[in-house]
């Protein structure tokens, strides 16, 4: 790549942290962009299109994460993902009811 990646700091605002449902949303959104998107903290930066990697970040409420995107649509990707974080993954309004998830048992 001839340009350096765009970066931004995002904050996990929903009380439950980056658990399965937000991670799923994040992957879906990130996958719509061509750019390589990474997210993480410290030395640990993971592929934003990999739900397993996102979950193992263990990002809890209040965690600051560095978001970076590299590619043609990097600008749009960063913008969209930052908005998703800002909205708390739609979990800010009705936190109590969605606290408890039944155990998966297919």
């Amino acid at each position: 790549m001839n340009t350096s990646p765009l970066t931004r700091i995002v904050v996990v605002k929903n009380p439950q942290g980056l658990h399965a449902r937000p991670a799923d949303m994040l992957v879906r959104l990130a996958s719509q962009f061509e750019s390589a998107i990474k997210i993480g903290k410290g030395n640990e930066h993971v592929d934003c299109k990999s739900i397993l990697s996102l979950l193992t970040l263990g990002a809890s409420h209040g965690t600051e994460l560095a978001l970076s995107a590299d590619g043609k649509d990097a600008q749009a990707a960063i913008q969209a993902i930052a908005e998703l974080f800002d909205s708390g993954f739609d979990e800010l309004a009705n936190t109590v009811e969605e606290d408890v998830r039944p155990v998966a048992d297919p």
Partner: protein
Amino acid sequence: MVELQGIPVSPGVAIGPALVLDPDGYRIPRCLVAAEDAEGEYARLQTAVDAVSALLETNRLETSAVAGVNTGDIFAAQLQMLHDPRLHAELGRRIREERQSAAYAVSRVLHNYAAALRRLDNPLLADRAEDVLDIEKQLLLQLGAVSRQPLSELTEPVIVLSHVLTPSETASLDRRYVRGFCTETGGPGGHTAIVAKGLELPAVVGIGTFLENIGAAATVIVDGDRGRVIIDPDEETLAHYEERLQQRESLAARLAELKDVPAETADKVRIQLSANIEFPHETESCLERGADGIGLYRTEFLYLSSSEEPSEEDHYEAYSQVVREMNGRPVVIRTLDLGADKMGQRPLAEQEHNPFLGLRSIRLSLKNLDLFRPQLRAVLRAAVHGDVRVMFPLITTMAELRQARMLLNVVAEDLNEAGIPYRSDIPVGMMVEVPAAVIMLDRFVKEVDFLSIGTNDLAQYTLAVDRSNEYVADLYQSCDPAVLRLIASSVKVADANQTPLAVCGEMSSNPGRALLLIGLGVRNLSVPPSALHRVKKAIRSVTLKQCIQIAERAMTFEAARDVDLYLQDRLSALAPELIVH
């Protein structure tokens, strides 16, 4: 590398790949594929992923319809995991470059993710490990790597890791391939432990929850001496244990030279050293190791190792085989000891709240004469082939002993009338396993030909500890001073009445404890075949006077731990060769 601590129940060291048994009976094999098959293996994985994907999608739709979209989204997240690009990159690399089988790669990679999730501080995320492991299982199922009878299809050496292993499952382990095992539950005196010792399988039980965190393809070290289990050891640890394994093997070879010398102390006091067995085929190792006889033949395994209730002929065949092979040496057949933690084919009692205080052992036999009679008939019939003695377990009251003896007489009369060959003049003994029997031993001793102390049950009932309950297992100590006093008092009564007394519990298989028992006056020990050489070596390393000194000192302690530490100290001074580091 992960180190776990459990309860050591069967000594020795075993090293090998893990075979994780979960309650559903999944088996996760460990193997590599040929280079030319790697692409085919990868294609198999893709097919499996597609199938699981379809299944998860169905689950998502059906669950959403029934329980709402939020609940259905559980499967959306699982689908996302299943199609995770990082996951596929890793699986592809393992299969194509490292030539791992798809099943092996799947279990390894997904277990790693699950373990990473569990390590997180966030319980909500840690619980997602379940979702990951669920995907693993679905994939393994699709890959045909899952078997309902994992233990019957072994083709390579393994270490069995399981939540629980019943005594009969333990007994049916294929010893050609199973090198050792570890379980989450269990205590030191449970029958699984006894069977493990009988099979000479290094084993650690009562580890607590650990299976969820184990990669299926992990390498495992079972340290049955210290109760340690090491998962994925580093090179240094592995080398250390491989050396210990070798040391043990060379010690075993040296001890084997004791085969033809008698079990007597340095000052020529002869100790009868017999073996405890479960299965007829064990007579071979008893003879190989020069046992004086079979001190305890646990017959209940006839019930536990077959799917049908044994007939009189089954009993007769098994007993006759043992008696013939022992070639004139005494064989003590203990009548069935079912109940509590081991049950036969039929539900013999209602679900009991306290099975160890319930309908078990002689109590169960006396209430199920249709079960008991064929066994007694078989014992009397097999007695024509050699020196057979019969022993009743868990005798608590005089009435029980008399009923059992009476039934033996009735059975003999039946055989007589039917003209079937039998012997009725065989010695009849009882096991001393409950404090009541010790307290009343002066009466019991008048009505039996011999006594045998079962230290496992005696400790359990004296200390009021269910030995298979891991919450209290640490309270179960056969060297507890209270137990030692009961043994000492039993020996006195037996001696005063010239009645032979043996100790056939697990206690006598520990060389230090064996010396203590000899010091207390016991002249007849029965131990698992695996312990014969070690105990004989200990006996031949000491004088009777030294044993008496050991006993006198041991009886002054107030705690089992002090007794054990003292015994260990004496043993390392008197028979240092036996201390394995």
